[in-house]
């Protein structure tokens, strides 16, 4: 029957992607969950105990959260400022946007290596500082003895690498806001800052939410940049998962780390979904 077929058609068309996701996402996820909660095939919390009692665990949690809590707000503020400036450009918007989004086209490991070249002992930064007479010779910034400089190096590299994605989302969101809202605010006496806070920001909430969720989840997964710049001097959660898997050959603890990251990411997503929800009656 044609009616039955037409009713089934959407599901048939969706089936390949569902199967694909089930095979390559759902199955590994379930495997990871079971793996993390078992020891020698017996259900156990041993992996989690080992993870938590490891020396690097506290450091990795602290570093990751520190990084996320500084990088993401900086990126949101910067991207907002950049998007607002971009909107003001009478012409050449596309060119500026392209240039600003160049880092998006570079893999995070390559980006990390670029910043390593700048920040290492004999890197560009030290050459410049030496040339200016500010340092006497090669100075190490990226060791475990210089945690603040190391953190700052990772921070700068992350901001450079991943602010553009926030910019793209926020810029697209800004362009969806009809200009009459801004004009109406202006006509009724609002100063530019008031217009931004009372009109633009609230109307941009859906885009801010998307950007925050995406950026936060990705920031909790930070790894390649950190590894390229700081190696094991700056432990982060994904780095630890990698260590346990590659260097200690312990898939169970690595799986426990993976589960921890999933839980944190989900938690952050839920928080943003709730905190930045737009009530249906307030939708434009």
């Amino acid at each position, binding site marked *: 029957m044609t009616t039955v077929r037409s009713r089934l058609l959407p599901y048939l068309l969706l089936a390949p992607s569902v199967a694909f996701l089930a095979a390559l996402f759902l199955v590994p996820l379930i495997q990871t969950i079971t793996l993390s909660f078992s020891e020698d095939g017996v259900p156990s919390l041993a992996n989690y105990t080992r993870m938590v009692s490891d020396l690097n665990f506290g450091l990795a949690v602290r570093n990751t959260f520190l990084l996320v809590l500084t990088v993401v707000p900086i990126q949101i503020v910067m991207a907002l400022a950049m998007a607002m400036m971009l909107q003001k450009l009478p012409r050449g918007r596309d060119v500026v946007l392209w240039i600003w989004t160049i880092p998006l086209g570079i893999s995070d490991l390559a980006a990390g290596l670029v910043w390593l070249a700048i920040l290492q002992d004999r890197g560009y930064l030290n050459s410049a500082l030496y040339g200016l007479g500010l340092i006497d010779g090669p100075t190490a910034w990226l060791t475990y003895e210089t945690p603040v400089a190391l953190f700052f190096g990772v921070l700068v590299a992350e901001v450079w690498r991943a602010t553009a994605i926030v910019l793209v989302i926020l810029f697209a969101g800004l362009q969806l806001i009809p200009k009459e*809202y801004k004009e109406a*605010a*202006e*006509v009724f006496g*609002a100063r530019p800052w008031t217009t931004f806070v009372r009109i633009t920001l609230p109307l941009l909430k859906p885009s801010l939410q998307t950007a925050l969720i995406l950026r936060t989840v990705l920031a909790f997964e930070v790894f390649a940049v950190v590894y390229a710049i700081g190696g094991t001097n700056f432990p982060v959660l994904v780095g630890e998962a990698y260590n346990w898997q590659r260097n200690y050959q312990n898939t169970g603890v690595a799986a426990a780390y993976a589960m921890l990251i999933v839980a944190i990411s989900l938690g952050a997503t839920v928080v943003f979904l709730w905190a930045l929800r*737009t009530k249906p009656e307030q*939708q434009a």
Partner: protein
Amino acid sequence: MADIKIDKIAKTFGNARALDEITLDIADGEFIALLGPSGCGKTTLLRIIAGLETRSAGRVIIGGRDISDTPTRARGLAMVFQNYAVFPHMTVYENVAFGLRMQKADEARIKAQVARAAELLHIEPYLERYPAKLSGGQRQRVAVARALAVEPPVLLMDEPLSNLDALLRLEMRAELKAVLREAGTTTIYVTHDQTEAMGLADRIAVMHGGRIVQIDKPTAVYSRPKTTFVGGFVGSPPMNFLPVTAASGAIDLDGLSLAAPRPEGNLLAGIRAEDFALSHSGEGLAFDVMVAEPLGSHTLLTGRSHGQMLRVVAPPNGDYPADTRLGLKPDPNRIVWMDAASGEALRQETAA
């Protein structure tokens, strides 16, 4: 006091001249309609007055104060936008209160003013709702209430009724006129709808190609258009323009002799559809009916006279089958004589 003086305002976009030295004086409390087809510059002019668009030359003076370089927020205006621009994330109350909040008015005053504006526009029941829950007409009322709540000396309206359906538009038009008369606000109203302009305005400025072609009372613009453009644009149906030739001071229309405003030469006789007297015996200008549209209050006849298309208003109850030949007698006092070459009304006729 908020009289508006627009002094030689010009606007160019690259090489294109959007506004060509517009000069316009608007009295305090007057309601002016800027009427014209799309692209005539009426919205650009309004936005320049609001400060939302930069001008290329000229000055805008409101209440004796040159505000040409004053930022929009300090001009003391209110505006109603075509798409309402009612803030979706604020309740109706907060929307109406917005301008007062920006003026840092105290809470008691805000409350009183919002209540007054809400009462005027009949939106009291919706004050706590969000705009998404309102119909187009209700949102339009909110937009007008927001503008009136600040008791602006000058109100700018940019096609405020064009997004409403026909019935609602008619209703809002009458209401707007009453509300604004009571408020005594100097109003500039941009529209492409000549009925709206005729119905609302004290004076209509008809714009065409970046210039004001004619500015006058609605009845004068209607019955004494300065150019064929005005006659064609204002009024529905548009004015008829009958090409005639004057010879020895008279014009002959199929045996009907009219006094010509010029002794010789080609002229256009601008005649409104309702200014013909119909003669079934065929006396006067020969007219062959092509289509009759019974419109209730009258019947609109479209037909030809010597190859020239004419529209004629006939009484509502007559029967006018196609190819009926009728005689037309135009009312000589209501004919607007125009120069055939320039399309401009002859001088003695415009001094009405």
